[in-house]
């Protein structure tokens, strides 16, 4: 499964990059995220409750960041296990570009899913992933843009 999209955020690049690296912000944005622990600058651990069609499960997983291209670009790879519900692994490449004080965020994500999730959800997985991604960025935009608005107000 592959997913690509582009969104424009009102906040400047540095702010967006910082937010993307802030576990608290991420936890608020990731749909169903119950827990996000940062073990190091590049290693995170997450617990996420996910529902795809008839399958609902708690996934526990790890995420590794590659920040060598920061702050304009970074990559992440991760894997999650939902026990009887199945498992997933994948990665995303994110690029940030500043344009007129705003930030254009592009991402290309790839994922492989397995287990019951793949069997039952094959028809639903792409649309579910899109929905989850849009939920994430809606919330993310809300947070970073709110910060921008707040700082402008101040």
């Amino acid at each position, binding site marked *: 499964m592959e997913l690509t999209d582009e969104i424009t955020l009102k906040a400047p690049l540095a702010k967006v990059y910082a937010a993307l690296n802030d576990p608290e912000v991420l936890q608020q944005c990731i749909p169903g995220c119950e827990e996000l622990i940062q073990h190091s600058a590049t290693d995170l651990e997450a617990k996420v409750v996910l529902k795809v069609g008839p399958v609902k499960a708690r996934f526990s997983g790890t995420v590794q960041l590659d920040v060598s291209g920061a702050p304009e670009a970074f990559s992440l790879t991760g894997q999650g296990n939902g*026990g009887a519900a199945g*498992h997933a692994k994948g990665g995303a490449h994110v690029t940030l570009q500043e344009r007129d004080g705003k930030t254009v965020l592009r991402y290309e994500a790839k994922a492989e899913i*397995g287990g019951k999730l793949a*069997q039952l959800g094959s028809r639903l997985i792409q649309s579910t992933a899109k929905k989850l991604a849009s939920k994430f960025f809606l919330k993310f935009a809300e947070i970073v843009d709110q910060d921008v608005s707040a700082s402008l107000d101040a």
Partner: protein
Amino acid sequence: MNDLTPNREERTANLKGMGCARKRVEDARFTQGQGNYVDDVKLPGMLHGDFVRSPYAHARVKSINKEAALALPGVVAVLTAEDLAPLNLHWMPTLAGDKQMVLADGKVLFQGQEVAFVVANDRYIAADAVELVEVDYEELPVITDPFEALQSDVVLREDLAGQTEGAHGPRKHHNHIFTWEQGDEAATNQVMDSAEVVAEESMYYHRTHPCPLETCGSVASMDKVNGKLTLWGTFQAPHVVRTVAALLSGIEEHNIRVISPDIGGGFGNKVGVYPGYICSIVASIVTGKPVKWVEDRMENLMSTAFARDYWMKGKISATKEGKITGLHCHVTADHGGFDACADPTKFPAGFMNICTGSYDIPVAYLGVDGVYTNKAPGGVSYRCSFRVTEAVYFIERMIEVLAIELDMDAAELRRINFIKKEQFPYTAALGWEYDSGDYHTAWDKALKTVDYEGLRAEQAERVEAFKRGETRKLMGVGLSFFTEIVGAGPVKNCDILGMGMFDSCEIRIHPTGSAIARLGTISQGQGHATTFAQILASEIGISADSITIEEGDTDTAPYGLGTYGSRSTPVAGAATALAGRKIRAKAQMIAAYLLEVHDDDVEFDVDRFVVKGAPERFSTMKDIAYAAYNQAIPGLEPGLEAVSYYDPPNMTYPFGAYVCVMDIDVDTGVPEIRRFYALDDCGTRINPMIIEGQVHGGLTEALAVALGQEIAYDDLGNVKTGTLMDFFLPTAWEVPNYETDFTVTPSPHHPIGAKGVGESPHVGGVPCFSNAVQDAFRAFGLRHTNMPHDHWRIWQTANKLGLHD
């Protein structure tokens, strides 16, 4: 005789014997919801089992943590391979001479493999506990392609490491199972090299699944007081299960009672022995309580036996006039993680060597390589005799491809190559002796009925109209002529795990002239209780309505090898007729005594014995039955009972001619079946109505397989068709109206000349539907495209041929 005595015709009609379209006696309970299936078995204190299954297609099992599951109230036990190992039941033998893990022993080889068995006092608690078992897997590289498997360094079966010899000879590679060769390859190649015309084609007969409406399941009840194990289950071969259970468990066979209650369809899916059966038995022994295991639909589709998955490469040679001179076939057979094919022991690729079909082919060769992959084990005969569907599909496609090569009409090509009536019994190049047949008569009748020439003319017109842009629908005329090979034994050739494939019938006539007959087979919807009573009625002169047929309880039924491969009528049906004749022989002596004449002076007449030349002096079977029990007859034991164990001298060879007319919308890929004509010759016809029902059912499953039903895997070994959302089961919406017809060519060696019919329509139907799709595109250059022909694939075919430009 006075006028009130029914005449001979009336008496025959009253018997409801062979040839009568008798209504199915089982339907009274089925249509009223009164069937009794495995899941209807409910015993006091019964526990429920459920499997933890692998989400991975290939992985090492590093650890299994049962604690959270065991802590859930209501959970009684969680079994793993470690628990079964001391009993030596963590692995079990397969029907194909391989062994299979009952529960994952260190690694898993396919998605859905059984890893742990949770036992709880409630089905829902068991399901909840399954989610609480923590299994730590380490992913391994997945191989779902048999050709890749034969090249790969990845060893799937580490337990077989270093073993260069398998159950069926040498293994060429660590993922190779066997090579099976039949015929003369050198001679075949020689013919090919000098042939005027050679057509080659590769085809994939996709993996599919029998998908009976009732999934597999069992209830095991170990009575620790009397030491008896009772096992109810969805078994197509209950006696075999009892013997295997005795050998595996060490429980003496007389202490095991296996019961197949009503079975909601089998189609081959219920021939094998599954981990669920073993686990329910072990769990019952461990807990001392009855344990039920019933799989759900997803489990059924992804873990219990699949069918087909044959990659077939063919070469057929002929003269310029179309006379076939040779056939070469090589199969790469994907058997999944364990070789659990359900074939007679000496036939690792079943009867694939019937692939010369209905044609007089002087020389042929078949080679089959079995291969391990990370897919579910199985390889059962889904509504066909062992691998006969694959064989018939292969030859019926090769004929079409040869017709294209020769630019010849495919019906004519078949006609000039049929084995002729006078050639029977006919020994084929690959060894089988066809018992009887009259192919030309059947073929001509079929073509005439459908106005074959008219169809071809219409098709040609349609092609022109399509080219002129006046229509977007193409017309396909699908042909198939098949010969099945059913009714295994004989015992000298055919056994399963060393158990000879005979079958049996035991009859008891009651004093008032009714009867019970028990058989070694088990109906899964075929209507045995109806048809076997009809055979007996004709043989012993007691009305079918007065005969109870019982099967499936190993404590009462005589030993038999069960129902699959259309063997019930050819084998158990013969045993029934012969047991009936033993009854009749004794009845004749009793009649002679009652009529005070010599044995030779009485003759059987429908429902009685009459004195020869004096039909007014008779003794009915009712009189005879009463006398058998209540009159002291000098020189005769009291009672009227008989048993027959029948080892068939040969198999039977039913055949048929099918024609399918189809209109295909090239823009949507939707095929519309305009007409389907099925002529079946199953020898003597016992019940025409049941035959018609069997033909309808078999054709519908053929339609399913040809037009969309498949078990598909992605590259990671995920089963992509694990639910009925994705796995195609046709409904009334997709199923056309079928026209059935027949000819009668009795089997010369079968006591009543019957050949078996339950699977013929599936065997002949699949190539017929497929040929119809392919024929629609023949005028545009299509030579072969693989099944299943779902709308998307048909659209792609049209697209590739440039029909959307």
